[in-house]
Each structure stands twice: as C-alpha cells, then as structure tokens.
C-alpha cells in the first residue's frame, strides 16, 4: 500500500466515511463529518498510521487533505 493510500484510508477511518469515498479534495469543516472533534481523531489516526508526533501549529494548520500531505512531508513522510 502506498503512503497516499494509507493517508486516504486514515481520513476515511477517522471521519467515518465509506471505504470508497473520495477524500483528496476534502477541506476542514466543508464536510459535515470533519468538525473540531473529528479533527483531533483524524490527527491521532494519522500519527498512529505514520508513527509521527505532529506539532500543535501543524494540527491547527491541517485544513485540507492537501495540507495533510504537505505537513506529513515535514515529518519525513513522502506521500505519493
């Protein structure tokens, strides 16, 4: 499984979305399931999946799937 597939699955799991849901264009609070509580769950899921510890500033800044890709890059995870 590629890093991109793992990140997509992390979003689907944390936000309780169907297994085939498109997540690449998701933005924080645009989807009703991505609220502030779900955001903390999403960050925890991503941290578990990629074994990283994300700084608070990056937690706050993770406003979309694309941003998650960019932020993971800072922690050495190359999502392709």
């Amino acid at each position: 499984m590629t890093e991109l597939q793992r990140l997509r699955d992390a979003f689907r799991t944390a936000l309780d979305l169907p297994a085939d849901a498109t997540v690449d264009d998701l933005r924080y609070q645009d989807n009703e399931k991505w609220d502030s509580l779900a955001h903390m769950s999403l960050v925890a899921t991503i941290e578990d999946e990629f074994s990283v510890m994300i700084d608070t500033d990056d937690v706050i800044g993770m406003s979309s799937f694309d941003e998650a890709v960019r932020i993971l890059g800072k922690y050495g995870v190359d999502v392709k």
Partner: protein
Amino acid sequence: MSVALVTGASRGIGRATAHRLAEQGYDLVLHGHGEAGVAEAAEALSGKFGVTVKHAAGDIADPATSKALVRLAFETFKRLDALVVNAGTHAAGMLGMTPDATVERLFAVNAAGAAYTLQNAVRLLARAEKPSVVLTASITGTHGVAGQAVYAASKAAVVGLTKSAAKELGSRGIRVNAVAPGFIATDMLDTLDEAGRAERIADTALGRLGTAEDVADVITFLLSDQARFVTGQIIGVDGGLTL
C-alpha cells in the same frame, strides 16, 4: 508498563512525585529547568528502581520545551499515561512593589507553561487506556494571600485550566485534577523570612510545614485508578491551613 511525564522534577514536589511513580514501576520522562539537576534525578531513580527514565532540560515558559518532552515520550515509549504539570516558580511581593519582570515571569512559567505542557501532551495522552493529569496549583490560588497577589493569580490560572480541561477532556477519557499545596518545605519557601515561616506554621491546623512527599502521595493517588471517578477537583494538601 505505564509512562509518566513530570515537569519540574529536579527537586521538591516534582522529584518526590517522580520517586513515588518510579517506586510504582512507571517509566518516566523528567523535566528540569537545568540539565544537571534533572540528569541527576533521572540517574538516581533509574538506578534505584530499574525503570527507564529519560530527561530533558529547558525553560517551561518556552513551548518548545514541552513539545520536546512529549516528543521524547513518543519516540521512546510511544505512549503517555500520566502527566504531572508541576514546574513552577515563586515570588512574593506586595502590590505596588512587584517588578514588571516578576509579574511576567510568574505568569510565563506558572500559567502559560502549564497550558503549553497540557496542550502539547493531550493528544498522546488521549491514546492511553486510563490517562490522567495532575497539575500543581496552590492554596494561594484558591484562597488568596496578602503579599503574594501575583503568584496567587498565576496559580489561579492553573485552577481554571484544570477545571476547564477536565470538562473538555472527560469525553476522551482523560481525568484532570490539581493539588493545591499549602506551605511546603521546599526551595520555594526560601523567599519567606523566618517570621513568615513561623506565621505559616501557626496558621496550619496540623502545626507543621508540609513535605514534598505529603503532596507527592496525593498526586500519585489522583493519577491512580483508585481515583478513577475523580476529575476537575482541586485537592488541598495544606495541613488545615487557613489563609
């Protein structure tokens, strides 16, 4: 094996708490303001109890310090079960005679430092089975005391942080409590003169200053499963002090 992070663990209440936790088999991440003190504490506890003890030094008023501590817990243990937010500083001073720098430092360490530590640790704590946090407030923060208004205010911030965090984090299974020590025989009392110390003892029902161990025992109780239905509480450990 459970993992605890203790700030301000070089001496006093933090060190006594770290000692009790190591005694109970916790692996530890210890923080101290200066490297030498916390390194010595870590080595002593590791040697005596055979637990893994990591340490880091830095100014807790700088959010980078607590970030580094949590990262150390994550990288070493991948978990955090207990957090003791204890690092603090004390200064007495009458209103109108307290330097601005003292006001700023008291709030930076006691209030902002506590908030940074809790905020940076909360996501790792949330992954634990029975996570628990204890903060060190002060009886001055709950009751007020003449001559220590700014210190008391900075500790009142810890009371508000504790109660709000308990409400916010309860749904995620994280208990948050605080101890409110009275007059404890630690380095922080060095800023009181002998007359002041005698006066504090006279005001204490049990007729003595508290010890760091008196407070550490309550902290470890609050962290334990015996306190599993206790959250949002500020527990006085003051020997019956009346201010």
